[in-house]
C-alpha cells in the first residue's frame, strides 16, 4: 500500500459516514415512505453484483504469481464456491477454500 495516511483516513472516515447514511436512510430520513419496486429489486442483488466481480480477477490473475493463473488458487476458489452453495455457510466455505489452498500448495510443492 503506497497511499499516505491522510488518504487512508479520508477513505475510512468517508466510508464510515456513507455506510452510516445508508443504514440511517429509512430509519432517520425517509421514514416510512416506500421506495419504487424496481429500486428495492436492484438493491437485493448488490452483494451478488459486486463481490463476484471483485473476486474473479483475483482468482484468475493472482498478484502473488505475477498474474499467472495458479492451479492451487483455482482449486481453492472452486472448493470455496462449491461448499458455499452446498452448505450456505460462509465459514464452512472459507474453511474449505483455505484447506484446499494449503493442501494443493503442499502437493504441488
Amino acid at each position, binding site marked *: 500500500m503506497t497511499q499516505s495516511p491522510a488518504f487512508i483516513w479520508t477513505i475510512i472516515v468517508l466510508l464510515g459516514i456513507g455506510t452510516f447514511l445508508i443504514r440511517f436512510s429509512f430509519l432517520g430520513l425517509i421514514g416510512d415512505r416506500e421506495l419504487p419496486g424496481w429500486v428495492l429489486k436492484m438493491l437485493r442483488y448488490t452483494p451478488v*453484483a*459486486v463481490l463476484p466481480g471483485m*473476486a474473479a480477477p483475483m482468482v484468475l490473475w493472482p498478484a502473488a504469481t505475477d498474474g499467472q493463473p495458479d492451479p492451487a488458487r483455482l482449486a481453492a476458489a472452486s472448493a470455496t464456491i462449491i461448499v458455499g452453495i452446498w452448505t450456505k455457510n460462509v465459514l464452512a466455505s472459507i474453511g474449505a477454500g483455505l484447506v484446499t489452498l494449503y493442501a494443493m500448495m503442499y502437493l504441488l510443492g
Partner: protein
Amino acid sequence: MPTTTMKSEFIRGMKGGAPFILVIVPFSMLFGVVATEAGLNLTQTMGFSFLVIAGASQFAAVQLMTDNAPAFFILATSLAVNLRMAMYSASITPHLGDAPLWKRAIVAYFLVDQSYAVCAVEYERRPDMTTAERYAFYFGCILPICALWYAMTFLGAVIGSSIPPEFALDFALPITFIALFAPMLKTFAHVAAALTSIVVALALSWMPVGTGLLVAAGCAMAVGALVETRMEARK
C-alpha cells in the same frame, strides 16, 4: 416492573445474537490480519472496524487500496456492497421508527446483517412488543456481536504481521469474497447476476482500477432485477 421486562428483553436479545459469535470471531480476526498484511497500521485497521463496522465493504476497500485505485472508485465500490443495508433500514423502520432520533441513529450505526436478521424475525414473531422492548432486545442482540467485532479485529491485527508469506494470505481475500456471495446463489436471478458481474468485470479489466467493476456491478444488478421480473411474469 418495566425495568425487569426491559432486562429480560435485553437478555433475550443477547441470546438471539450469541450464535453469531462463531461467525464474528474468525471473520473480524481475518479482517485484522488482511488489513495489516496490506500495510495498514493498527490504528487504521481499528478505525475501519469502529467507523465502518461492515465486513465485506471493509475487505473491498482494503483490496482496492492495495490496487492503488482512486478514492472515488474505492468509495463507490465499497458503498455499493453496503447498499443492501438500505433495505434493512426500510424493513425495520415500522418497528423502531417512533423513537427519538438519537436512538434511531444508534440503531442505524449497529444495523449489520446479523442484528437485522435476528431482530426482524423477532419483531415479526411478537408483534405485541412495545417500542421500548424492541429497543432493549435490539441492544441485547448487538452486544455480543459488535463488542467481539472490535476485540477480534484488534487481535487479528496484532497477530497478523507475524504470519509468514508462505501462508499465502493474499488469497484469504478472494476466498472471503467467494464465501460471502456463494451462499446467496439461491435463485436463478442471483446466479445470473453473479455470472454477469464476473464476465463484465473480467472483460473490462483493462479499464482503470475500480471503474470496470462499477460497470459490472451496475449491469449485474440490472440483470438480477430483470430475470426476477421475467420469472415472476412466467408464474
